[in-house]
């Protein structure tokens, strides 16, 4: 199998091949055992991915459903039975009664917390919880502060954005600071574009200038933009990378809350 043939098989799998090319590929699969085997493994791989996707989806639904079930069962704790116990008297019954009452109160408090969490959680609320501003490390520069750095340190966000827009040579620092300024100004779509630009430049050039910062604040921007589905893969990536500059910060986030917000967003 040549790499071109393998690539053609993948294109066929993705239904991107038509006409005579399709005929010749199908002939290849039918006549060449190696191609048939490769085709089989590629199909298995796609089946495995689809299965994995379904498993993840069911897991998310299961978790949400279990939480709702817990909440509901807690609400059905039969507190009206407690006065009846009071009438029957006796120390043991009293203790039981108070024990039950305490348990009921604890359960109700827990359930209220859970219900409140479910109702109040959203990507925007998570953004509010996890957003903290960026402090510019001036040592990063070559020496004297650039105008855009001065504006950033002065929290003059509009000037930062304006300087970035008119900069003759845009580098990752300019793009990143413009992204942060946009985020501060609640111009989330602009912030996302700036941070993605930083990441794209690094990907293209094989560099990592402001890479960790851009990834983290890109995820935060997606949360602010109420798109937790977009934030999650980035946050999961950061969490999985102990060397990432924002790993500790992300590791402290509640992924349960994030998934809950994701579930609500997908409903």
């Amino acid at each position, binding site marked *: 199998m040549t790499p071109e043939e*393998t*690539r053609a098989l*993948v294109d066929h799998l993705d239904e991107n091949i038509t006409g005579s090319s399709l005929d010749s590929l199908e002939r290849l699969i039918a006549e060449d055992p190696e191609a048939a*085997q*490769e085709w*089989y*493994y*590629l199909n*298995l*791989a*796609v*089946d*495995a*991915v*689809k*299965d*994995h*996707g*379904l*498993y*993840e*989806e*069911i*897991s998310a*639904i*299961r978790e949400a*459903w279990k939480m*709702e079930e817990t909440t509901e069962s807690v609400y059905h704790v039969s507190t009206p039975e407690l006065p009846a116990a009071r009438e029957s008297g006796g120390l043991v019954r009293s203790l039981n009664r108070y024990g039950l009452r305490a348990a009921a109160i604890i359960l109700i408090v827990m359930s209220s917390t859970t219900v409140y969490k*479910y109702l109040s959680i959203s990507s925007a609320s998570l953004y509010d919880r996890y957003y903290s501003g960026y402090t510019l490390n001036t040592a990063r520069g070559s020496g004297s502060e650039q105008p855009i750095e001065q504006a950033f340190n002065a929290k003059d966000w509009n000037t930062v954005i304006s300087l970035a827009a008119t900069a003759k040579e845009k580098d990752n620092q300019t793009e990143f600071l413009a992204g942060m300024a946009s985020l501060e100004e609640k111009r989330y779509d602009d912030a996302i574009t700036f941070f*993605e630009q930083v*990441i*794209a430049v690094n*990907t*293209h050039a094989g560099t990592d200038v402001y890479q960790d910062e851009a*990834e983290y604040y*890109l995820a935060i921007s997606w949360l602010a933009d109420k798109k937790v*589905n*977009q934030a999650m*893969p*980035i946050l*999961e*990536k950061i969490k*999985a990378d102990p060397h990432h500059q924002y790993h500790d910060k992300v590791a402290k986030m509640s992924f349960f809350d994030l998934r809950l917000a994701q579930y609500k967003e*997908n*409903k």
Partner: protein
Amino acid sequence: MRAEEKYTDPELIAAISAGRDLNNAIRYLYQQYSEATSSFIKHHGGSEQDADDIFQETVMAFIDTVRKDKFRGEASVKTFLNAIARNYWFNEMKKRGRAGQRDKVFELSRDKDEADVSHHISEMERKRQLRGLVDQLGDSCRKVLVLFYYENMSMKEIADHLPYENEQVVRNKKYKCLQQLAGFIKDNPAIARQMQEILK
């Protein structure tokens, strides 16, 4: 917050086949049928976690069967799910070496109307192995593949949503990731054995 949808068996099957409101259909399965499975498994030596895992695998098997149009409706959804869950738990106990309990559970719980679901069980096991191989991929690979093949997102949509420069970068990434996964499968002895049996 709860799914209010109630389904008859044919409605449930139609919804899953059409990929319509899959979330609600899955929630309905949990609401209606998970408790019985959970009780059975906990009553027969399983933990809460076992019950959760077995029912999730059972739901997976049910959806897969329906999507492949192999659910014939000879048994009710409930009977099908019970049979799958019981047999899967039976299989799990076998793997854990609890043979005596296994036989007892199986014989006591067997429904006389129960269809042979052994082929479902071996298919579930195979799928579980394959999912394990997907887990071995890096996060970025898994995400690209799931977005493309499960979420049916276009290359452009993926490029817009993940930190990739353009569609071509995503296309190359997806190709490499799929190749990597296919490589894992080739290198997996159990899957390779199945392959040999198929090619015989």
